[in-house]
């Protein structure tokens, strides 16, 4: 069974099941519990130019069918990440895609430049949609012009395969997706978390130290399906789906609305072996259907004239 995925610029994943940024650390934390060589790809924790201590606690809380997190991009900075982990990544069969965040276009460009050519770094996922930080969080993801500008600047700074992660916290995803694709991104990933809050016991204040957090988990899956459905029709580059994958049916749903691969995120916390199992189950499912490649499952639920933007877009405008 051919499960390989070509995301462009030489980034070929062994299978379409990746692990999502922020839920799998730098790939080493789960130790022997997870066989990283069986994963389609690993998106590491958001990485910035300088070290960040992140947001005050509490940083996570469970919500119905999901969770809110507000880590605030705690990380040791790109140079420390390269020094500590790239050597290990280079020994893995699974490609490691470094999630990159910044406060300015210059930040993103500099981080990308430092990752360029580092053995063990297979690609970059541009995080322009973190809802949990002040400067440089969401503002690049909610405006097509800014999204295109930062994508283009990073594109010129590196030959690494470039994925750009979309935010669902926008009125219409399609012009943003197009601007990113036109600026030279190799693929889109969608979605980042939805901005939300939870209350502390006693209801005297919000629960999270940062007040706002990002909602993830099964609760966001319908939103992710909608965004992938729209983005897949708006651009010609591949779309990688994220949002509430907990079982094979979710993978099949995302493929049906046009995703070429999926990232498993929050569900890993409950079930670290889920991504490996999904690879097995997808293989079996294709066998059961008599398919020679899983790609035949992609886009089956899209309108017949897929590729043309929907004329119903106006309903998403404010």
């Amino acid at each position, binding site marked *: 069974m051919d499960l390989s995925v070509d995301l462009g610029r030489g980034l070929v994943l062994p299978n379409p099941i990746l692990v999502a940024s922020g839920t799998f650390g730098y790939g080493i934390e789960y130790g022997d519990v997870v066989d990283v060589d069986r994963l389609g790809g690993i998106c590491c924790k958001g990485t910035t130019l300088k070290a960040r201590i992140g947001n005050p606690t509490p940083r996570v809380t*469970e919500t119905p069918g999901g969770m809110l997190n507000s880590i605030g991009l705690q990380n040791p900075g790109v140079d420390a990440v390269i020094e500590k982990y790239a050597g290990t990544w280079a020994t893995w069969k699974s490609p490691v895609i470094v999630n990159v965040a910044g406060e300015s276009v210059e930040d993103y460009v500099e981080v990308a430049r430092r990752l360029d050519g580092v053995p063990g770094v297979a690609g970059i996922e541009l995080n322009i949609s973190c809802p949990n930080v002040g400067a440089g969080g969401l503002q690049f993801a909610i405006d097509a012009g800014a999204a295109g500008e930062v994508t283009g600047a990073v594109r010129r700074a590196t030959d690494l395969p470039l994925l750009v992660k979309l935010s669902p916290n926008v009125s219409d995803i399609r012009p943003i997706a197009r601007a990113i694709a036109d600026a030279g991104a190799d693929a889109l990933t969608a979605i980042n978390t939805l901005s939300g809050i939870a209350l502390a016991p006693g209801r005297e204040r919000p629960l999270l130290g940062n007040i706002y957090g990002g909602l993830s988990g099964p609760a966001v899956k319908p939103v992710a399906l909608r965004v992938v459905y729209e983005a897949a029709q708006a651009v010609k580059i591949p779309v990688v789906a994220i949002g509430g994958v907990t079982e094979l049916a979710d993978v099949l749903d995302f493929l049906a609305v046009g995703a070429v691969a999926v990232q498993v995120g929050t*569900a890993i916390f409950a079930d670290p072996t889920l991504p490996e199992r999904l690879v097995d189950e997808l293989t079996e499912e294709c066998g059961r259907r008599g398919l020679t490649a899983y790609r035949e499952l992609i886009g089956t639920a899209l309108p017949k004239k897929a590729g043309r933007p929907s004329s119903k877009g106006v309903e998403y405008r404010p």
Partner: protein
Amino acid sequence: MRLAGAELVESREILPGQWIQAYHAPGLARGSRAGQFVHARPGDFSGLILRRPFSLNTADPATGIVTIHFRVIGRGTGWFTRLRPGDEIDLLGPLGRPFEVDPRSQHLLLVAGGLGMAGVRMLADEAIRDGRRVTLLFGAASAREVYPSSLLPDEIEYVVATDDGSLGHHGYVTDLVADYESWADQAFACGPLPMLAALARLAAGRRERLGVAKLGRKRGARKAAPVGSPAARRKAFLQVSMEQNMGCAVGACLGCVVMSTSGVPQRVCREGPVFATEEIAWDGAWS
């Protein structure tokens, strides 16, 4: 750390809303140390999407039984109380770093506030096995929340304080510490953050109160052990087991940090849950 099925053997409510459950998990029972914890998965994945962390309350390698002690605070902990003997759940563990007892320490002072008992309970077993003497100071709101002495080893001295004076000392458990600070070689605590912070203040002033001379070294100061290292804990008079909302419990999500004196947030699940008191920024912006 491994992922393993564990069969519920016994489940009972030891105090109003507080449960002790025994699971058959031979690998965990053999490989765990006091201070470590497990991350247990509720089977109801439709609504409860995170695992729940529980301190290992006891671990018996001979029978393969581990116990957890928890209070019902929401839907997740409620789910666990509805399990019946024979039911199987999956446990990820053992996780985190354990208490480290200096081999020279003969007298151990354990301090627990409320559910904090679950965090230090197993250390009493280990200390007695190793021939040490143990005093356990326990604080609760009232007599009806006092951990039953019948569930503790006979060999330990058990001293109780209640906020309302309904049993034992009338006041905070931290009031009792003064009587033991010269006796104790090391102290180990788990409980609410204000209790731990108060103990940290007491520990910081202990040397001066006891008149312990600072034994100088001929050439410079001894190099400080790195944050999170076993040596940093072993050398400390007071070790604390910290609590924080947790996501992955393996160090991947950075959800459960506490601020350290080095200025870098430390993961409760990985560098902790046990820290030397000197490692924690008690007056930091975070708590």
